[in-house]
Structure formats: C-alpha cells, structure tokens
C-alpha cells in the first residue's frame, strides 16, 4: 500500500519535468511519463540473476524505484554542502554508511581518473610522433 502511495507522490511532482511522454502510455496505472530505462534495466536484471526475459511489470517497478532513489539522493545532496548544487563530495558523504555503494563510487572515480590520465598520455604520445 505504502509503495503505491510513494510512487504516485513523486510521479505527480515529476510529471511536469518529463513532457516527452509520447501520448498517454498508461504503464501499470502510473504516469504519462515515457519509460526511460526499459532496455538497460532488462539487461541489468538478467545480469543480476533474473530470467533472460523479465516481466515488464517488474521492470517498470524497478525503474520507478531507481528514479525515486536518484530523486531522493539528488534532493539530499542539494541540502548538504553547497546548497542548491549537487557535487561528488555530497554524494560520497551520503553514501558513506553503505559499504557496497561507497566502495563502488570510489572505484569508479579512481578508474575514471586513471582512464583520463591514460588518454592524455596516449594523445601526447600521438602528438609527439
């Protein structure tokens, strides 16, 4: 019960932002919002252990949950650190209690730095020759 309440709640406030719904796509009785992550979520669910063809309703529920998660995190990040802006440090701070997510963010950012450095070195090598 609470689940539907939550989803209906945020659906209303996000409806204005996402005007690219192609007509009234009534997905599970929720918004007119187009499904953003259907394809990617299907692959993800298969990767995480579900069947090769997951049910569309399950994918929809998961998409709603992910969007709600991102929304919550963004709102929280806006309220700490520099107000009104979302910065990486805020996200890392919010995630500090969750070991999995914290480790993942650290890894991603470290790897991004490494790749940037490697690309720069590659470009410089190219430029030299």
């Amino acid at each position, binding site marked *: 019960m609470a689940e539907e309440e939550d989803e209906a709640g945020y659906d209303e406030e996000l409806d204005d932002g996402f005007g690219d719904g192609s007509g009234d796509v009534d997905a599970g009785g929720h918004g007119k919002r187009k499904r953003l992550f259907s394809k990617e979520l299907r692959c993800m669910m298969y*990767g995480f252990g579900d*069947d090769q063809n997951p049910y569309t309703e399950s994918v929809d529920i998961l998409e709603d949950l*992910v969007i709600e998660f991102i929304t919550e995190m963004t709102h929280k990040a806006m309220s700490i650190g520099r107000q*009104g*802006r979302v910065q*990486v440090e805020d996200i*890392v701070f919010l995630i500090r209690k969750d070991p999995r997510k914290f480790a*993942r963010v650290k890894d991603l*950012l470290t790897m991004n730095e490494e790749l940037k450095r490697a690309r720069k070195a590659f470009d410089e090598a190219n430029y030299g020759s």
Partner: protein
Amino acid sequence: MADPARMIKPEVKAERAASAYEERPKSEGSGDAAAKPTDVNKESSSQDAVKEEGRSETAAGEDDDDQSDAKRLKVDPEKKKERRQKVDEDEIQKMQVLVSSFSEEQLNRYEMYRRSAFPKAAIKRLIQSITGSSVSQNVVIAMSGISKVFAGEIVEEALDVCDKWGETPPLQPKHMREAVRRLKCKDQIPNTKHKQILFH
C-alpha cells in the same frame, strides 16, 4: 577494484572488450563524437596504456613516499601498498580462474552484468531537471554507478524472496514489493517523504 578480465588471454577477447567498454565511464560521450572504428581502436590501446599505467603508477608512488614522508612513516605506506597490490593480484588471479570455468550461459550473464549501465544522458537530464542547474560529469558517473548497485540490491533481495516462497524466476511484482519492504526495514531505501515528529 582490479579488473581481472584485463589480463585475460586473447581467446577471451570478447570478455576483454566487454570490460574495457564497461570501465569507460565516459564511453557514451566520446563514442557519439568520434567515429565508431577509431573509437574501438582507442579503447583497446588506452586499455593497454592503462595496464602499463597501473603498474608504473604504483612504482612511482613508492618512490615519492621515500622522498617526501618522514623516515618513521616510510615503512607503513610502502608495506600497505605492497600488501594491497598483492591482494589485488590474488583477486585478479582468482577471478581469472573463475571466469575461465564459466559455462556459456554463465558467461552470457556475466557479460550482461558487467556491460549493462544506465545511459549517462538520461541520468544527467534527470538530475538536472531536479536541481535546475547543471551538474558535473563526475556526479553523473557516481550517480549511475550507485543506481546500478541499488538495482542490484533489489533484484538480489527479490530473488531471495522468490526462492524463499518456493517459486521460480522470472521475478514477479509481488517479489519486488516484498524485497522493497525488507530493504526499507534495513534502511537501505531512502525515504524523506514521511517526517516523524517525535515530541509534539
């Protein structure tokens, strides 16, 4: 996290390409700009460069530690780095052994697990529509990363529920909802909508 697939033999080229693709947090952006073939070449060569980079980096790091740190602290950072390197290498080897013994179906699933990701453009649009101002690329990378972990946690919990109720995948909405209920109890699902006033 060290990527074991980086050092895998040429016969598992697909795995390698998959990991290179997955590890490029900015793949969407640069992939759109450049032509596809040149992009792939750059990927594999940058991956080689990264491998070299990873090795030389730790060596350079140790030299710096020697020169800049006080003598008293010199031993600890070096030992920690060595230990971490060794643990990384052990993990890489173990993962290699594991992945090489996968069946076809398992390889498929593992490839999906590594390769799937949320589109950076959509995530960026979503965050910007909430904040009203632009966000940096690192924020998008971090957010899509933790969203994927979040989705994984839910799916794993739902599979647990499905198993406990004696049913089989594919997952049904009732499993997902029960999984969310359980994770809410463990405080893994953020919810700032219900404000509880303790004393009024």
